[in-house]
C-alpha cells in the first residue's frame, strides 16, 4: 500500500473507532428477546439476569418477552410480531419448532434486523432457518455428555436399567435432551457389551407430579439403577427416595439446570451429575454480539455455552452463585 | 289492644305514597293502600302496571325511592326479605321461593333453620326436628307427601306451591303475599289454592293475591284493587264489581 492509502485507511479506522461510541450514543441499541417459557421458570430468570446485565453495560434498550403458557409456540410468535413492530435492532429467540419461525425470522432479516437464536436452535441449524448465529447448548450433545458423566457411576457388574423421564413430550428441548442420553446409552451398550435397557416415560414438569410418577415407577421397578430427567424435576424424586429410606447413590439421578434445590441434593449425594446450561451466558453473549453487529458491522457467531457438567464437589461453590441467579 | 280481629283499627300493613323508578321508568307513582287484618285482597293489572314492584317493596325485597310502609301502624324500613319475614310478612314468589335441588325439609326451613347448637348466627342443624315438623306443616295444608327428604324438584307445580304455603303458615305469618300462585297449575291444584286462601282469611291471616287471571281472583278474594301505569285505578269490595268492570279500567 502507498503511504497515502495507508494514511487514509488509518484515518478511516480512527474515524470509525471514534465515531463508534458516538454512533452508539445516538441511537441506543434496542433488543427484543422472545422465548417460549413462562416467568415462573427459574432457568429463564438466570438468562434474564445475564441479558439485563449485558444490556446495562452497553446502554441498550432491552425487553424480554415471556409466554403465559409454558412452551406455547403461538404465544411466542405473537410476542415476536409485537416486538418486531417496534423495529428493534436485534431479535433473539428460541427456535423450539423447525418450521414455525422460518417466516418471521426471514422477514426480520430482510428488514435488516440482527437475528440470533438462543438456547434452542432449529434442528437443521443454519440450513433450516435464516438466523445468523446460535448461542446455547446443543441439547443432544448435552444429553450425551450427561449420560457419559453418569456412566462413571454405573454399578461395575450386572444389568443396567435406566429410566428416561421426558418432561414435555413433543417439545424440542425435552425430546432432544432425552435423545442425547439415549444415544449415549446405545453407544455404551455396544462398546461395553453390557446388558443395558431403558424406558421412557412422560415425567411431567411439576415437582410434585414428577416425584409422584417417578417415585411410583421406581418403587415398582426396584432394579432401576439410574433416572435421567430432561429438566430439574428429579430434585423432587431425590426427596421421595430420601423419605423412603433409600440411601443416596442407590438410584443415580441426573438432569439439567442448576437451581439451589438441585445443588442441595447434590450435597446430600442423591444427585450425581447435572448439566449446567450456563443460562447467564446465554443471556449475556447475544447482547454483546448485537452490539458489535450494530456498531461495527461484525457478524454474530455461534457460541457453545458448554457441555459443562456440574459434579457434587462443585456444589458448595455454586450455591452462592446459583442463589443470585448467576449460575 | 283488644283481640277483635275485625275491628277497624290500624291496618295490618299499609303503603303511603310509594314511588319507585326502575331504569328510568316510573314504575310506582304515589301508591297508597291500607290492608286490614283478615282481608283477602286481590291485586290485578296488566304487565308493567306496577303490581310486582309494589309487592317487592311490601315483601322487603326492594326499598321504595320515596314514601313509607307501615306495619300495624308503625313505619318500618325493611332492608331485606329477612326483615319482612321477621315482621310476619311471607311472600310466595312467582318463580318459586324453593331450591329444586334441595329437600322439602331443607327448603321449608331455609334461612331459618332450627339449630341444635350455635355460635352466633351459625350452628348445627336440628335435622330430626326439621323432618318431623315439615311433615306436620305439610299435612296441615292438606298435602300428603311421602317423605320430607324428597327433592323439591321432583314435585309438581301445585305440590311446590303447597310446600311454599305450608312454610309461610308454619312461621305464623300475619300477611301472606301470593305472587301469581295459580300460574302453571292444573285445574284441581288451582281449586285447592283458592280454597286455601279463603280458609286463611277465616283464620285471620291477611292475604294479598296477585294474578292476571280475574276468575281466580274473584273466586278467592273479598276486595279487589286494580293497578295501571303505576297507580291504583280501582279499589272495591269484590261484591261491588265484576271482571268486566276491571277490564274497562285497565
Amino acid at each position, binding site marked *: 500500500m502507498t503511504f497515502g492509502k495507508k494514511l487514509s485507511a488509518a484515518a478511516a479506522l480512527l474515524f470509525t473507532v471514534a465515531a463508534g461510541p458516538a454512533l452508539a450514543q445516538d441511537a441506543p441499541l434496542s433488543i427484543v428477546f422472545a422465548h417460549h417459557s413462562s416467568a415462573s421458570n427459574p432457568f429463564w430468570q438466570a438468562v*434474564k439476569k445475564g441479558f439485563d446485565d449485558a444490556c446495562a453495560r452497553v446502554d441498550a434498550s432491552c425487553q424480554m418477552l415471556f409466554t403465559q403458557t409454558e412452551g406455547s409456540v403461538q404465544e411466542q410468535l405473537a410476542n415476536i410480531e409485537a416486538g418486531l413492530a417496534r423495529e428493534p435492532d436485534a431479535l433473539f429467540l428460541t427456535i423450539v419448532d423447525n418450521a414455525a419461525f422460518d417466516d418471521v425470522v426471514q422477514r426480520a432479516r430482510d428488514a435488516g434486523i440482527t437475528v440470533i437464536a438462543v438456547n434452542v436452535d432449529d434442528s437443521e441449524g443454519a440450513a433450516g432457518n435464516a438466523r445468523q448465529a446460535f448461542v446455547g447448548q446443543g441439547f443432544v450433545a448435552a444429553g450425551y455428555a450427561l449420560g457419559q458423566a453418569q456412566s462413571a457411576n454405573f454399578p461395575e457388574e450386572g444389568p443396567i436399567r435406566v429410566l428416561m423421564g421426558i418432561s414435555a413430550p413433543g417439545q424440542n428441548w425435552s425430546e432432544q435432551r432425552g435423545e442425547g442420553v439415549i444415544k449415549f446409552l446405545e453407544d455404551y451398550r455396544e462398546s461395553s457389551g453390557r446388558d443395558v435397557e431403558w424406558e421412557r416415560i412422560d415425567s411431567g414438569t411439576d415437582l*410434585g407430579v414428577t416425584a409422584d410418577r417417578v417415585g411410583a415407577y421406581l418403587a*415398582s421397578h426396584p432394579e432401576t439403577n439410574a433416572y435421567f430427567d430432561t429438566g430439574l424435576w428429579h430434585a423432587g424424586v431425590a426427596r421421595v427416595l430420601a423419605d423412603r429410606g433409600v440411601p443416596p447413590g442407590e438410584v443415580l439421578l441426573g438432569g439439567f439446570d442448576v*437451581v439451589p434445590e438441585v445443588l442441595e441434593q447434590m450435597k446430600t449425594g442423591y444427585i450425581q451429575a447435572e448439566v449446567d446450561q450456563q443460562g447467564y451466558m446465554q443471556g449475556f453473549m447475544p447482547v454483546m454480539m448485537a452490539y458489535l453487529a450494530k456498531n461495527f458491522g461484525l457478524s454474530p457467531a455461534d457460541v457453545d455455552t458448554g457441555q459443562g457438567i456440574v459434579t457434587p464437589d462443585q456444589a458448595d461453590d455454586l450455591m452462592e452463585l*446459583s442463589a443470585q441467579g448467576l449460575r | 289492644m283488644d283481640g277483635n280481629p275485625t275491628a277497624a283499627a290500624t291496618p295490618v300493613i299499609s303503603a303511603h305514597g310509594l314511588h319507585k323508578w326502575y331504569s328510568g321508568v316510573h314504575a310506582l307513582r304515589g301508591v297508597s293502600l291500607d290492608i286490614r287484618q283478615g282481608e283477602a285482597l286481590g291485586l290485578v293489572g296488566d304487565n308493567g302496571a306496577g303490581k310486582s314492584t309494589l309487592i317487592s317493596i311490601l315483601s322487603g325485597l326492594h326499598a321504595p325511592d320515596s314514601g313509607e310502609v307501615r306495619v300495624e301502624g308503625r313505619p318500618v324500613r325493611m332492608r331485606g326479605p329477612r326483615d319482612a319475614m321477621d315482621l310476619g310478612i311471607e311472600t310466595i*314468589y312467582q*318463580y318459586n321461593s324453593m*331450591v329444586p*335441588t334441595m329437600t322439602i325439609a331443607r327448603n321449608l326451613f331455609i334461612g331459618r*333453620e332450627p339449630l341444635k347448637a350455635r355460635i352466633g348466627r351459625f350452628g348445627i342443624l336440628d335435622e330430626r326436628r326439621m323432618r318431623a315438623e315439615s311433615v306436620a306443616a305439610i299435612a296441615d295444608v292438606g298435602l300428603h307427601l311421602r317423605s320430607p327428604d324428597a327433592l323439591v324438584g321432583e314435585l309438581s307445580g301445585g305440590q311446590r306451591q303447597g310446600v311454599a304455603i305450608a312454610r309461610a303458615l308454619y312461621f305464623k305469618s300475619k300477611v301472606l303475599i301470593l305472587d301469581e300462585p295459580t300460574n302453571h297449575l292444573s285445574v284441581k291444584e288451582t281449586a285447592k289454592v283458592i280454597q286455601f286462601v279463603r280458609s286463611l282469611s277465616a283464620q285471620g291471616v291477611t292475604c294479598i293475591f296477585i294474578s292476571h287471571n280475574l276468575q281466580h281472583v274473584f273466586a278467592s278474594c273479598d276486595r279487589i284493587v286494580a293497578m295501571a301505569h303505576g297507580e291504583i285505578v280501582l279499589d272495591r269490595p269484590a261484591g261491588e264489581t265484576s271482571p268486566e268492570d276491571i277490564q274497562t279500567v285497565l
Partner: protein
Amino acid sequence: MRRLLKRSLQKPELAATLLLILLVVVFQILSNGFFLSEANLRGFLGLMPEMALVATGVTLLMICGEFDLSVGSVFALMPMTMAVLMTQGWPFLPAMTAGLLLCVVIGFLNGWLTIRFAIPSFITTLGMLFMARSLTVVVSGGFPPRLNMEAIPASLFVAFVGPGSLVRASFLWFLAIALLMGFLLGRTNFGNWVRATGGFLPAAQAMGIPTARVKITAFIICSVLAGFAGMIQVMRLGSPLPSAGEGLELQAVAAAVIGGTSLWGGIGSILGGIIGAVLIRVIDNGLVLSQVDGSWFKFAIGALTILAVIGNSWLRKRGQAMKISEH
C-alpha cells in the same frame, strides 16, 4: 332394597366410587399386582392429600355456584411468601399465618370483585390466576429461596405416622379438614345456605340468606385450602418453585365434576370431590405402573377421564330409569 339401590345409583359419589374400584382392579392386573403394594400406596399417599385438599375447596365453591381458577397459583404463592418471609428472619408461625392471611385476601378479592361488578367468577379468578402467579415470581425475585427446614416443624405436617409408615401426617390433616368441610356443608345452617345459594340464587336471596357473604366465605375457604395444600407440598418436597401447581385448577374442577358436582351449582358433595381427586391420581399413577409409553401418556389420561365421567353419568341414568312401583 331395590329402592335403596335406585337411590344409591343416583348419588354421584357412588357412581364415582364404583368406577374407582373398577380402575383399581384393572391397574392392579396391568401392573402385575404392584398397584396396591405397600410401597406404591405409600408414594400415592404423598401427592394425593395435597391435591384432594385443593379439590375439597373447589368443590365447596362450585356447590355454592362459583368457580375458582386461581387455586393453582395460590398453591404456589402461599408457600413462596412464607419462605421469603422466613429468609427475612420471620419465625415459622408468623410466616405461615401471613401466608394464610394472604390467601384470605385473595379469596376475598375473588368473591368481592365477582359480586360487586357482577362478572362471572370464571373470569375474575382467571385474572387472579395470572396475577397471583406473577406475584409468586415477583416475591421470589425470580429465584426460589431456600427453605430453612430447621425452623419448620415439617414433621408435624409431612412425617410418616402410624404403623408401617404408610400414611403421612398430611393425610391426617387432609382427613380432618375434609371431615370438617363435609360436616360444615351437610350439617350446619351455613351449609344449607351454600346449597341454596348455588342451587337457586333468587330463592336464597328471597328467603333472606346473605348470599354475598356466603359466597365470599366460600371463596375464602377455597383459597385458604389451596394455600395450605401448597405449603404441605413444599414441606414434603423442600423447594418452593414458582411453577408449582400449574394446571392444578383444571384437575381440581375435573375432580369435582367426576365426583358429581354440577357445573351449575347446588349439587355435589365434599366426598364426591375427594373421590374425584383420588380417581384422577389413580389414573395417573396406574398408567405409570402400566408402562404406557411416554408420548401416549397424556392421551391415556384424557381418555380415561372422559370415560370416568361417561360411566358416572350412565350409572346415574340407570338408577333414574329403575322402575319402582308407587304405593
